[in-house]
């Protein structure tokens, strides 16, 4: 968390790796770690990042402001679904894939979007990959959340091996103190989720901003 550098993503073919951003390397690294090789071409995928390639897009915005031409490769690798495209190419995956962003609820809504894929095709696992890196320094003071560089992958299915979780969504005004620890500005949800997943003494996790509460429970 918060450290410099990025995984080397050596499993990527050199041509793909050369153009990869730090975010792409981090998200592809956990995607490959989190999904067994034999399933990589078969899973549906959800790629979620609150900020996406904000930092890498910044020089493009500056080029535009100065009237300079853009590099087509840089443009291609800063779209929000760049990681989805890279994963599909690197793993030969031809299944459905979503890329999303949901403000401070990015992780929780990625989990929900994964459930929509399980709804569409109940028998197929969904790989959820979420991550972020620091945004452009000029924008950072405007952010309502602690910054962290991280990537997390989860492989979800209705049934099978692994940790069994229940998930529900509630709305309405929250009573103060009824939720788990929520430092302000909070860590990105994905990190709170991972912390909870490793803390087996806590049966329930509630995350969410404003009127929305996303609840996970060990089944």
């Amino acid at each position: 968390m918060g450290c410099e550098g990025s995984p080397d993503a050596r499993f990527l073919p050199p041509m793909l790796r050369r153009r990869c951003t730090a975010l792409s390397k981090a998200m592809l690294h956990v995607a490959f770690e989190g999904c067994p090789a034999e399933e990589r071409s078969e899973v549906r995928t959800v790629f979620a990042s609150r900020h996406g390639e904000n930092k890498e897009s910044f020089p493009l915005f500056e080029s535009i402001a100065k009237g300079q031409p853009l590099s087509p490769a840089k443009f291609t690798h800063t779209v929000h679904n760049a990681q989805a495209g890279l994963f599909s190419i690197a793993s030969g995956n031809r299944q459905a894939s979503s890329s999303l962003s949901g403000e401070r609820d990015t992780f929780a809504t990625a989990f929900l979007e994964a459930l929509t894929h399980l709804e569409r095709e109940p028998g197929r696992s969904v790989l959820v990959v979420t991550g972020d890196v620091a945004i452009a320094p000029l924008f950072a003071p405007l952010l309502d959340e602690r910054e962290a560089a991280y990537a997390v992958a989860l492989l979800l299915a209705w049934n099978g091996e692994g940790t069994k979780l229940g998930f529900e969504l509630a709305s309405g005004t929250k009573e103060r103190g009824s939720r788990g620890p929520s430092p302000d500005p909070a860590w990105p949800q994905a990190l709170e989720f991972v912390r909870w997943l490793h803390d087996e003494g806590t049966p329930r996790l509630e995350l969410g901003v404003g009127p929305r509460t996303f609840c996970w429970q060990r089944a």
Partner: protein
Amino acid sequence: MREHAPCRLRALGMVNALGALSDEIWQGLLAGDQSRLTWRDDLVPGRSLLVGEVRSPLPEIPSALRRYRCRNNALSLAVLLGLEAELAAVIAEVGRGRVGVVMGTSTSGVSDAEAALCHNAAHGVLAPGFDYPQLEFGGAAGFVAAYLGSEGPVYTLSTACSSGARALASARSLLALGVCDAVVAGATDTLCGLTTNGFCALQAVSDELPNPMSANRKGLTLGEGSAILLVTREEGGIQLEGVGESSEAHHMSAPDPAGGGAENAMREALRDAGLTPADIAYVNLHGTGTPLNDAMESAAVVRVFGEQVPASSTKALVGHTLGAAGAMEAGFCWMMLARASDGQIALLPHAWDGRRDPALARLRLVDKGERARVEGRVHLLTNSFGFGGNNCVLVLGGELPC
């Protein structure tokens, strides 16, 4: 076919280069009117660009929501204002907590961020009024939910040119899961320096009138706009009947030339809807007008449907609205169904120079004034093929009159 919960597309609003009113847009579509495309000199240095710009005045975002104030969200607001009665009714009906919002965008407020950075270059400070929620992708849906006061789940999908179609696919699943009782789903994209310069750098942009499927096609014409639908778990009316999705595992910015991904997504959408190719009365093509898209798409459509299915690209009229296109074109199909009557449906004409490319598979492109005779349920299919090989095909249908 899987048993589906019903998925009704209860109301539609849109704004694009053809206008902001349903009748105005419909007349433009039927006339194959390319006259609303305009030239802009300020988007790409040294190049005049033909674009589908929204020229109707846009509403001001209320000051309580100023953190979301950007052109992209003003386009969404223009549509929401037209849907106000329908949206208020559904919130009263099911409750705020049961209304979700899923939007698609590929730009969010990039055009405002570009202006903020120009201001920064000149004055050493970001433009006053600029805020991060204008730029982050999540803000596209965040704004809609904040404006409506909805309290169900909110997120923005950004899979390039399939974003808008995907928003409707996710809306259907959120309803089927029981997480929401209504979803406000759609997509908005704004003309900006990033996408115009980016697609020009990829040599994908035409300097002439859009000419999809023609031997003379020179590339795409960019556009902007918003299309938003109210989606509920109700029988009847116009239904989202099928969703087909695929990835291509091929290239970051070019489609698989064989059209395998496009074909898979169309076949999957038909299977999902429980239909055969012969059941489809019209195909709204992705039809960008780039040499590669049109070659692979015509081949894929003919492989799935044969040469007889009426087809057209409406991007020749409003430009390629990128992230918004999938919702926009589903909206055009919605209008066709909503306005069909007496066993007849008006088909949307394909605007082009009429010069067939002998290298392309032979599509039956719709002529101006064509109508199709229909009986019972009518089904239309719309293609969206995104950058990075991300495809989403939708089937809309209904029993006439709907």
